[in-house]
């Protein structure tokens, strides 16, 4: 973790925020309001060092319905290892919330991975499993 804190300006939450958090709940199927910010998911995540906001911060922003959560890298870096899923003490699945955030962007035809940019060298080496998984997660 870079030690950077996300400063959230004082905001007034309105119907748009509720709409956004409900959308995240709908796509993920998770009751995100159960999250009490204990930090277990962030502590368990093997990729937390690469993320710009922690999983807990991502969950919190989703709870509050702050759409700017979509501007961060965190849910794109997620490797769907499900470590957070098995450890959340409140029984929520942060991996599903990360997927919901990815889907919100992907369904607007905004891909994270540009498949035409795969180098020739990588094309020779990468097994199909890597390509299929990456395309399913990071392209819409």
């Amino acid at each position, binding site marked *: 973790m870079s030690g950077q804190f996300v400063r959230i300006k004082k905001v007034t939450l309105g119907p748009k925020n509720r709409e956004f958090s409900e959308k995240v709940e709908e796509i993920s199927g998770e009751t995100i309001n159960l999250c009490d910010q204990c930090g277990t998911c962030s502590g368990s995540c093997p990729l937390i060092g690469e993320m710009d906001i922690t999983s807990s911060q991502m969950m919190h922003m989703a709870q509050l319905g702050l759409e700017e959560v979509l501007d961060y890298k965190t849910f794109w870096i997620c490797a769907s290892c499900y470590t957070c899923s098995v450890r959340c003490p409140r029984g929520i699945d942060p991996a599903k919330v990360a997927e919901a955030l990815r889907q919100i962007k992907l369904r607007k035809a905004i891909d994270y991975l540009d498949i035409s940019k795969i180098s020739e060298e990588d094309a020779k080496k990468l097994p199909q499993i890597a390509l299929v998984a990456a395309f*399913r997660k990071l392209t819409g």
Partner: protein
Amino acid sequence: MSGELIPIYIYSRRYFVPEGSTIISALEYIGFKLKKGVGCKEGFCGACASLYRLKDDYKLKGGLGCQTVVQPEMQIVQIPFVPAPKAIYNIEELEADPEIFVRFYPELYRCLSCNTCTKICPQELQVMDFVQAAIKGDFEQVANLSFDCIMCGLCSARCPAEITQFNLALLARRIYGKYLAKKSAHLEQRLKEVESGKFEEGYRELASLSPEELKNKYFQREINFQIT
């Protein structure tokens, strides 16, 4: 064919056309001047791909305009062209390795196995099966299953993963034909004979004849085959 007129919808406008017409003959009957979306009228060139829906049926269907007989209240639109990526390559520089799909058509790996392509194919090909064969790296299977593809493009237009089935199958067939298919010994032998000049004299002789003499030679040719 009763000669009765039945209603159909072209670009949502209603026309009456003879029962038993194909989509293309119906369009001609109506008076459309067809500059695109028509070709051989034999079901072979793939130019006349059309999308249609039947009365009270939600299912979207695809068919060739020259082969599909119109039904009463059929709604029709032509899809003369489907924009698609077309890889440019020198076949001599390629190998029969699945990595060529990653290089030229990486979207192949987005396939959802949903079968939408198979459902719309006017040739009733097992499109999803050959796409899957490409993912598995089985060039022979792709070649065999896509053999009758006429490149109409409907599969690619409908595909949720935005794959271009017809172009990647073409690449697979070319690779298969060049690198994997059994070589014909007769062909190799004949090519050697041609290159050695065995038929030079015969051709020169023919080329020197007048059209009349050529015609005579043609009508007097020996037809020598036996049905065994």
